C-alpha cells in the first residue's frame, strides 16, 4: 500500500510534466490540424535555457530559491516562446495550405535541426544540475516503507495546477481565447469575421512553447540531468498523452498526461523499467486503433 502511494505520487509528478507538453500538441492540432513534431525539441530547449539561467543566477549570487526559480521560469518562458514563434513563422506558415504530410516532414526536419543545433552549441554530454529544492514531507513513518512527498513534487503539482487554471481562464474568458476557439472551428470563417488568423496561430505556438518551457524546467529540477536528446522521448509520450485524452481537447491533454505518467510510473515499479517506453508506445497504438478520438475527443469526420 505504501509502495503504491509512493508510485502514485511519482507518476502524478511525471504526468503533470507530460500534460504541460501535451497542451502544446493538442492546441496546435486543434487549430491547424498538424502534428507539431518539433514540440518535444521546444521542451528540450526550455530545459537548456533553464539550466543556463540557473547557472548564471548561481554566478550572480541569487541565493534565495523562490526568487531564483521565479526568475528562471520567466526567462525560460520568454526565450523559449521566441523559438515557438520562429518555428511557426519559418517552417509551418508557408505550408499552411499544403498537404498534411508536407507539414509533418517539415516538422521532423525542424526537430532534427533543433536537436543538432543544441548539440553543436552546448555539447553532447549530459548536463547535471545540483538539486534546487531539497527535502520533503514524510508519511507513514511507522510502516517499513516511508512514503516521501518531496517539496519539489509539491511545487511541480501546484505549479501545473496554477498554470492550468490560468490557461483555462485565457481560453475561456479573453479575446485571444475566443479567437483561438473560433479558429479551431473554422479558420476561413474566423478570418472572414475579422480575426487575425496568423496572429492567433502565432500566439498559440507561443503559448504552447511557454508551457513546454515550464515542463522543461520541471523536468530539469525533477531529474537533475538533461541532454539534447530528451525532447524526442518526452515529445512522443506527450503526443501519446494528447491522443489518449483526445487530440484537440485541453482537459483531455491534462488527463492523458496524467494517465501516461501514472502508467509509466506503475509499469516501472511493478514490471520492468526497461520496457516502460514500449508501454507508452503500445498505449498509443491501442488508443489509435480502438478509440481514435481519445477519451474526451469529438469524432472527426473525414470530408471529401
Amino acid at each position, binding site marked *: 500500500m505504501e509502495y503504491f502511494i509512493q508510485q502514485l505520487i511519482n507518476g502524478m509528478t511525471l504526468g503533470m510534466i507530460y500534460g504541460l507538453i501535451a497542451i502544446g500538441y493538442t492546441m496546435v492540432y486543434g487549430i491547424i490540424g*498538424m*502534428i507539431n513534431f518539433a514540440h518535444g525539441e521546444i521542451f528540450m*530547449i526550455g530545459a*537548456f*535555457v533553464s*539550466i*543556463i*539561467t540557473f*547557472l*548564471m543566477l548561481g554566478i550572480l549570487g541569487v541565493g534565495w530559491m523562490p526568487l531564483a526559480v521565479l526568475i528562471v521560469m520567466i*526567462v525560460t518562458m*520568454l*526565450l523559449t516562446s*521566441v*523559438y515557438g*514563434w*520562429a518555428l511557426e513563422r519559418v517552417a509551418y506558415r508557408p*505550408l499552411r495550405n*499544403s*498537404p*498534411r*504530410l*508536407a507539414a*509533418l*516532414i*517539415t516538422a*521532423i*526536419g*525542424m526537430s*532534427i*535541426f*533543433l*536537436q*543538432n*543545433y*543544441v548539440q*553543436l*552549441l*552546448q*555539447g553532447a*554530454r549530459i*548536463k*547535471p*544540475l*545540483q538539486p534546487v529544492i531539497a527535502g520533503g514531507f514524510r508519511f507513514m513513518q511507522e510502516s517499513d516503507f516511508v512514503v516521501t512527498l518531496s517539496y519539489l513534487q509539491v511545487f511541480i503539482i501546484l505549479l501545473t495546477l496554477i498554470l492550468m487554471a490560468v490557461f483555462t481562464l485565457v481560453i475561456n474568458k479573453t479575446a485571444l481565447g475566443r479567437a483561438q476557439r473560433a479558429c479551431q472551428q473554422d479558420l476561413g470563417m474566423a478570418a472572414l469575421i475579422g480575426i487575425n488568423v496568423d496572429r492567433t496561430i502565432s500566439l498559440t505556438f507561443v503559448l504552447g512553447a511557454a508551457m513546454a518551457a515550464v515542463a522543461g524546467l520541471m523536468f530539469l529540477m525533477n531529474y537533475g540531468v538533461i541532454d539534447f536528446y530528451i525532447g*524526442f522521448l518526452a515529445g*512522443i509520450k506527450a*503526443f501519446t498523452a494528447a*491522443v489518449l485524452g483526445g487530440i484537440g481537447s485541453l482537459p483531455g491533454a491534462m488527463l492523458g498526461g496524467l494517465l501516461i505518467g501514472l502508467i509509466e510510473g506503475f509499469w516501472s515499479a511493478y514490471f520492468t523499467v*526497461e520496457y516502460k*517506453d*514500449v508501454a507508452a*508506445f503500445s498505449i*498509443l*497504438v491501442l488508443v*489509435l*486503433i480502438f478509440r*481514435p478520438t481519445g477519451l474526451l475527443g469529438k469524432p472527426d469526420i*473525414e470530408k*471529401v
Partner: protein
Amino acid sequence: MATPSSEQLKMQPLDLPALFKEAGYVAVVVLGLTIGLVGFKTEDVPGGLDIVTRFGQVILATVVAFAGRVGFILLRERRFIPVLIGAGAFSAAMLVLLIGNIVDADQGVGRFLPFESLVVNWLIMLFALVLAGRAAWLWSHTRRSQFVVDREAAMDRFSARVQQGAKFFGPLMLGVAIILPFLPVADRRLLDIAILVVTYIMLGWGLNIVVGLAGLLDLGYVAFYAVGAYSYALLATYLDLGFWTCLPFAGIMAAFAGIVLGFPVLRLRGDYLAIVTLGFGEMVRVILLNWYEFTKGPDGISGIPRPTFFGLPLVRSPPEGTESFHEFFGLTYSPLDRIIFLYYLILAMALVTNFFTLRIRKLPVGRAWEALREDETACRSIGINPRNTKLTAFAIGAMFGGFGGSFFATRQGFISPESFTFIESAIILAIVVLGGFGSQIGVVLAAILLIGLPEFFRELQQYRMLAFGAAMVTIMVWRPSGLLAHREPTIRLYPHGPPKEEGQS
C-alpha cells in the same frame, strides 16, 4: 508579396521608419533566439558545470540578421543598386577573409573572420552573394517572374526533363557504377563510400514503394532494416546458416513484421500512421536492446559470417578442405576482392529493387497504390480495398528493408541496436523526400548528395544532421512535393495525349 501592378513598378518613396521597424523586429527575434543558447555555453568542469559567454557572436548574428533583412526589404522595394553594392562588397570582403583563412589560419587577414564557426562564415558569405546576385538579376530583368506558380511550373518542367533525361542518364550512371571498382581512382575508401551510398539508394528505393508510390508516411522503416539484420545475424550465429540461405528468410521476416504492424494501423490517417510507425520503430529497438538472452542487447552480435561467392569464401587462407575465391580462379589474393564483391552484391540488390519497383508500377496493384496516394475516398468508391492494397505496399517495402538489413549485417560483421535509431529512418526518409516522392532517379541523386558528400568532407560531419534538418525544411517549404517530384501517371488512358484539348491538372 503583393502583386505588382503598373503603379507599383514605379519607384515609391521609401518608408524608412517601416523599414527599420521590420528589420528591427527580425533582429530582436534573432537576438532572442541566440542569446540563450549561443550567448552562454555550458562547459563541463570537475564538479559540475561552468558557463562560457559568447556575446560577441550574439551581437554579430543580430547585426547580420538586421542588415540581411534591410537588404531583403530593399530588394522587395526594387532598390537594386544599394543592395548590389552593399551585399556585393560584404560578400567580397568575407571571401577575402575566408581565403586568407585557408591560406593561413593564424596569421594574415584570416584571423579577422567574424564568426567562430567556419561554416557559419561561409554561409553568411554565400547568403550575401545570393542577395547580390538576385539584385543584379532583377536589375537587368525588368519582368518579375518570381511568382510561386511560375516557379513551381518551371520546376515541374525541370523535373520532367530530368526524368526524361533519366532514360539516357540512368544507363550512363549504371555503366559508371558497374566499372567503378576497376577505375584507377577506386581505392578502399572510395569503394567503402560507394557501398554505403548504394545501400542507402537501395533503402531509399524500398521506402519509395511505401512513401512515394503508396503515399504512406513510414517513420519506422529502420525497424524492418533491423529485423532483416537481426534475422540474418541470429540465424547465422544460432543455426550456422550462410548468407545466401538467410537472405530470403530475412526478407520474409521483415515482410511479416510489416504485415503484423500494418494490419492494425494501416487504416489510420496519414499523420497518425507516421507517429505509430515511429513508435513501432522505437519499440523494435528497445526490445532488441533489452532482450539480452536472445539478442545480446547493447553488446550486439559479432562474428557474423561474410557472404561467399557461390560457396567460395573471399579470404586469404580458407579452412581445410575448402577452396577460396582466388584459389579457384587462380588469382593472387587481394584484400580489395571482398570489398569489390560486396559492392557488386549491394549494387545487384539495389538494381533488383529498382527493377521490381519499375515493373510493379505497371501491374494493377502498383496502379492501385498510386491511385490510393492521390485519393483514398475515390479508390474506395471504385472498389479498391485500401487496407489490402496498403498492406502489400507496406510488406514489399519492408521486405526490401529486410534485404538491405541483412546486407548491412554481413558487411559490418557486427550489429547492435545502436545502428537502428530513429535518425536512420529520418535519413532514409529525407532521401526519398528530397528526391521527390516516387522518383527513382531522384533517390539516387539525393543519396549521393546526402550520404556521399558528407563522407568526403569529414570536417562537415558534425554539421551533417543539422544540414539534413535544414534541407528537409527548406525543400518542403520551397517545393512541398519534393525536389524532383514529377507525378506523371505511370499508365495513361491515352498514351499519346488526349484526343482533344484538355486542361492539365
